[in-house]
């Protein structure tokens, strides 16, 4: 029930066309708001937060909505603060290779802009047309090319945030090297919007790769040991793959029509170096594997497909089947186990499984589709196995009803009291993204 008071209070901060009442209640993914607001300035954001903090209101933060199914056990907060209209480049100095951009800017929009300057943000998140830079940073999204380029924590050099009490806090700066004070950027990256509303992100840029190719190496079914020894051989060589991603047979079938375990080995460098590395892979190619090499645009097209295979919170699947997406972290080579165990869920739990994972960094994405109870037990099963490997499972996408049943972040870490301490220092009234993070923070 939306109170007239809330509306009239918000009207004193924002104009009426910047707010929508009671939209999308009972949304499959939850994380809605009694009122959705679209601030256009940082001042408006600060005023809304200040208001909410003073009046004990809850705010959910959103923009592209790709992560609407990521965390949170609340159907609707008081206010859904959307940064969808808070976008655009703030500052780009090509010679410094740094970029400051407003949080609501869709990732692809900023990459397209940078490409004109032969530069890029070296992240490769899912759904780049929809996902905004603020959301990518807040949820610490990374993709297969993390092996070559690192993650948000390696790319972000400065953030501008609005704290729940309306204070504007800058962390880091505009320079690529900075140890002045605590590295507060790190605290906010991946904090799921529970500490503040990121309004601007400053990142260091990379030159666009001069050339890229992709070696697809498909292995006879089931022969994990062979993949393992090939991967070890490649990683122990002086080659420099920017991605070394293992695709499950089902995903490989979908992407390249080979129902086999497939390694996607990305190379980006000057052309001579890229071809040299392809040659090396050919030299050490296991006897009965199949190889396919994609150059330039074809390679890019492959990656583009990878970025849109998982569920998209902005357009959740309709129908009786449930979609889930998991982020799994293990020690690098254990990715092989994870892909294998995931694959087995198809038979043991009657779910559709598409999985891939980076052998050079240890992070996997496992997408599941099936009936609610099958998904639930599949996640359970997978988590048990991954825990035995010393890793973790985070459920990145799941309908609200299941999120209420499944602990999407897993067990609290032993140092949970520190996380709680940080949250309660910064957001004592739990205004922001209430219960969306680890341990109900």
């Amino acid at each position, binding site marked *: 029930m939306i109170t007239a008071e809330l509306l009239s209070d918000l009207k004193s901060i924002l104009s009426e066309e910047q707010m929508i009442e009671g939209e999308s209640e009972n949304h499959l993914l939850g994380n809605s708001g009694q009122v959705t607001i679209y601030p256009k300035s940082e001042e408006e954001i600060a005023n809304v937060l200040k208001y909410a903090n003073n009046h004990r209101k809850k705010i959910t933060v959103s923009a592209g909505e790709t992560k609407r199914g990521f965390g949170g056990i609340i159907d609707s907060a008081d206010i859904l603060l959307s940064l969808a209209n808070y976008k655009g480049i703030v500052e780009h100095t090509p010679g*410094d290779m740094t970029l400051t951009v407003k949080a609501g800017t869709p990732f692809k929009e900023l990459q397209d802009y940078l490409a004109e300057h032969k530069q890029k943000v070296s992240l490769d998140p899912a759904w780049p047309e929809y996902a905004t830079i603020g959301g990518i940073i807040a949820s610490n999204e990374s993709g297969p090319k993390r092996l070559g380029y690192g993650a948000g924590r390696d790319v972000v050099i400065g953030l501008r945030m609005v704290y729940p009490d309306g204070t504007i*806090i800058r962390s880091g700066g505009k*320079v690529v090297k900075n140890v002045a004070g605590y590295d507060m950027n790190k605290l906010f990256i991946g904090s799921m919007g529970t500490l503040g509303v990121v309004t601007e992100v400053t990142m260091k840029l990379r030159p666009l790769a001069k050339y890229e190719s992709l070696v697809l190496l498909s292995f006879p079914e089931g022969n994990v040991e062979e993949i393992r020894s090939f991967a070890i051989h490649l990683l122990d060589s002086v080659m420099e793959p920017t991605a070394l991603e293992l695709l499950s047979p089902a995903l490989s079938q979908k992407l390249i029509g080979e129902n086999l375990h497939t390694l996607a080995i990305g190379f980006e460098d000057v052309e001579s170096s890229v071809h040299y590395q392809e040659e090396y892979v050919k030299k050490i190619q296991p006897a009965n594997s199949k190889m396919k090499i994609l150059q330039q645009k074809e390679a890019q097209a492959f990656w583009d497909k990878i970025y849109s295979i998982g569920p998209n919170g902005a357009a959740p699947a309709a129908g009786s089947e449930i979609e889930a997406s998991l982020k799994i972290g293990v020690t690098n080579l254990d990715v092989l186990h994870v892909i294998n165990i995931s694959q087995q869920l198809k038979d043991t739990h009657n779910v559709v499984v598409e999985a891939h994972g980076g052998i050079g960094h240890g992070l996997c994405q496992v997408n599941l589709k099936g009936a609610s109870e099958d998904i639930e037990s599949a996640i359970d099963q997978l988590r048990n196995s991954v825990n035995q490997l010393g890793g973790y499972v985070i459920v990145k996408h799941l309908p609200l009803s299941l999120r209420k049943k499944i602990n999407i972040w897993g067990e609290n870490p032993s140092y949970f009291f520190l996380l709680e301490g940080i949250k309660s220092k910064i957001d004592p009234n739990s205004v922001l993204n209430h219960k969306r993070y680890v341990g109900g923070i």
Partner: protein
Amino acid sequence: MASKQIKTNDKHVKNLANIVGGSRSILYHKEDLLAYDSDGFTLHRHLPKAVVFPKDTQEVAKLVKYCSDNQLPFLARGAGTGLSGGAIPMNGEVIISMVRMKRLLSVNLENRRAVVEPGFVNLKLTNSISDKGYYYAPDPSSQYCCTIGGNVAENAGGAHCLKYGVTTNHILGLEVVLPNGEIIEIGENGIPDAPGYDLLGLITGSEGTLGIVTKITVRILKNPEAKQTVLAYFDNVTDGSQAVSDIISAGIVPAALEMMDKTAIEGVEAAAFPVGHPKDIEAVLLIEVDGISAGIAEQINQILEVCNNRNVREVKVAQDELERGRWWANRKTGFGAMGAISADYLVQDGVIPRSKLPQVLNRINQISEEAGLRIANIFHAGDGNLHPLVLFDARIPGESEKALAAGSACLQACADVGGTITGEHGVGIEKREEMRFVFTDEEINAQTDIREVFNPNNLLNAGKLFPMPGRCVEIKKELKEKEAAIS
């Protein structure tokens, strides 16, 4: 050797000695403590209460708990090479020296990680794995003696962090003793992105104010297949700076891109590793590219072309590893080399957007003239990290103060163009006040709020990192609250 008796009436010293197994693992006589009254930042000195040498995490935890329970200020110290005074016992701290915890615990090449104790020396890690073709990337100039624990505390950089990042980009896991003595492990098994706020990133670079790191899991890298190094001499600094920008704009990511100005060249040529730089040039660039052999020649050619377009006087490619090694020794010992041309020197550590290099160098020249002190410039030009070295003579009354003021003015110049006050040396004691050049009171407060979560009694390394009195902000806050209450 017969174990010595503890000869003091101080019960704390006796109790601390008991924790670490007796008198051989503690220093408490004034003459022994003198060596610990400062670190690499020598303009500030204070005697510690005692120096203890724990052998393992459990002992560290017990020491910390004892200090915490007894309200004794304490701090951790590695090799003491820090340049901002982070390990100076300004409150008469008990120093917990990590130098006995210096083992390499494990190396896992297949998963590219190593686990070390904090007292393990940076360069030893690379030396331990180089025969297999691996190395540890962060390479501060003091890497032959500084410890990885200290590197974590300071988030140390180095010449090669332009391409490979600083310490924080290479830390996968930490075991930490919190200021109450509790032991926690973050980044378990070295797996990235563990659920929860990124405490790994927060603690790295916290200058020993949030906890004491007792075990570190680091990422190790494979040696690049090929490496080439270029030396380029310029008759004016602007051309040299422009060449830096042009190299980056050409889409090259060099492994290192270093610059020295005329005064710095005079210093390094007078010191232990001269390489014959011409005396009359204004700037020398040391550029290194590494990676796949097939791609190196093309990048080197591009670099040579850029230098030629910017009126380089002479540019050469290192002919062999020996020559490359000489060039790097000349550069890496650059700070100490100032001792050859000046009685004392003060190292500063500002960072600026690369494009502002000529402008800031001009300003530093002005500062030098105004102060009547020479300032040499050695910098990681690729990432805009300047190290102005203020040359002075501490024996001349007032000159140390002048040098400090000139150093601070250099940092102001960096902050004025959107830069920052420290790129890799840390704030420590030295740059506490300069924090105000880059952060508002609220932003500093946001950081001390975090410290309070970890270190509520502020017994661990108090007085570092934040402007004195930190209370200023709190008083203001209190006043604000009072005002609000009244209105």
